[in-house]
């Protein structure tokens, strides 16, 4: 077993040599099918005898209520919001992800630092600043980015919610007053950010315009490869 790698230094108090689990990240926009596929992967991995922990950028105990309040009122500056999200991320990293990795679990993360970084950069944050903030994150064994065309995304979003989300439409970014066109512009910007990051961070871009069974089979094949690679070390 080789020690868990981090982008830079691990957070104080975390010993990389003690983290024996495997971190796998599924990234992608809302309605790209992340949670469906994580659920399918989880059952499949458990059938094969792997202990699985599911984590995500849900809200942590620490700043949940305050973050929600801030988003409702849209009263924080972009940088404050960035740091609030970073606090939330590290709270989950230290309280969920690290303990699960220490216990040797396969950790399936529904989104990760990349979504947070892309959102910040689209809102004008300096990429170097954002990278530095998240530099204490563990490097995942694999990142699967579920790439969806705008058309598929719009169709799926309307089928699921019948309306567009304020933040997912980037309505705070001044891209226009029309929600639909703002949504398309914002999602395109985020996608471009992911394409840029893909070069630096080496994501696997996965075509998620396909049916659930087709994508499921593809993802399982990829996860299988990751696990056999890890086991050979």
């Amino acid at each position, binding site marked *: 077993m080789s020690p868990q790698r981090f982008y830079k230094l691990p957070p104080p108090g975390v010993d990389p040599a003690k983290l024996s689990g495997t971190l796998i990240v599924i990234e992608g926009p809302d309605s790209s099918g992340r949670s469906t596929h994580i659920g399918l992967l989880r059952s499949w991995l458990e059938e094969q005898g792997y202990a699985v922990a599911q984590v995500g950028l849900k809200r942590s105990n620490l700043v949940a209520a305050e973050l929600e309040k801030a988003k409702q009122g849209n009263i*924080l500056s972009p*940088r404050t919001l960035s*740091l609030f999200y970073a*606090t939330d991320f590290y709270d989950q990293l230290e309280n969920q992800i690290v303990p699960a990795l220490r216990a040797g679990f396969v950790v399936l993360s529904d989104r990760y630092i990349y979504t947070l970084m892309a959102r*910040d950069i689209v809102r004008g944050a300096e990429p170097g600043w954002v990278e530095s903030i998240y530099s204490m994150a563990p490097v995942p064994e694999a990142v699967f980015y579920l790439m969806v065309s705008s058309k598929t995304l719009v169709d799926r979003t309307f089928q699921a919610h019948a309306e567009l989300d304020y933040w997912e439409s980037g309505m705070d970014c001044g891209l226009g007053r029309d929600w639909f066109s703002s949504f398309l512009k914002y999602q395109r910007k985020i996608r471009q950010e992911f394409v840029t990051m893909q070069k630096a961070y080496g994501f696997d871009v996965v075509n998620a315009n396909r049916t659930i069974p087709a994508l499921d089979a593809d993802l399982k094949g990829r996860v299988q490869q990751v696990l056999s690679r890890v086991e050979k070390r």
Partner: protein
Amino acid sequence: MIVSRREEHLPGKLIAVEGLDGSGKSTQIHLVHQWLRSKGYRVFFTEWNSSSLVREATKKGKKRQLLTPTTFSLIHATDFADRYERQMLPLLRAGYIVLCDRYIFTSFARDATRGCDQTWLREMYGFARIPDITFFFRLPLEVALGRILEGRPQLKYFEAGMDLGLSPDITESFRVFQGRVLDQYLKMADEYGFTVMDATLSVHEQQKRVRSAIQERIDLALYHKRFFQ
């Protein structure tokens, strides 16, 4: 959008006070505030850890002892960014003198003591302007400890650095923690050009020196309410 270059020219001036708990810095900056206000200068005062939204989360985190060194640091940076972008930066752009009771150096000193990486801390606060004057109120450790331990024996968990496991005894932990924080401050003094004040002098004597240092380095007439830039 997030744009606030540290080097950008701003018409306002930024004055910060730093020092250990018990060093008397809050008293001194309060007196500076009173002085500038009574003379009719455009001045604004802000203190560490005081943004209303973030305060709730911080309070909760501290009470339940949920914070790690990393989240402790981040939550204070969030608070700082909120005050910086909402108040301090706009006021500096508008030509105000902004007075800060504690600034980013508090985080550099405390969070580095808690094990946070120096580079990480400095990059995180990279958006914050270095003050025009940073007064550091220097007091021998034993004197600072004496002032706090005499007057306010109810030490708080994080304030005493209990999260570091330095000692099971809260008073002892506070002593060790404050000593390490002081070392961190002293290491920064040259790098950031602190104006070091002898905090063993009388309050009045210190204030006289603080005021003359400000007058020497800032053309106060430019900040008078009658003067329009």
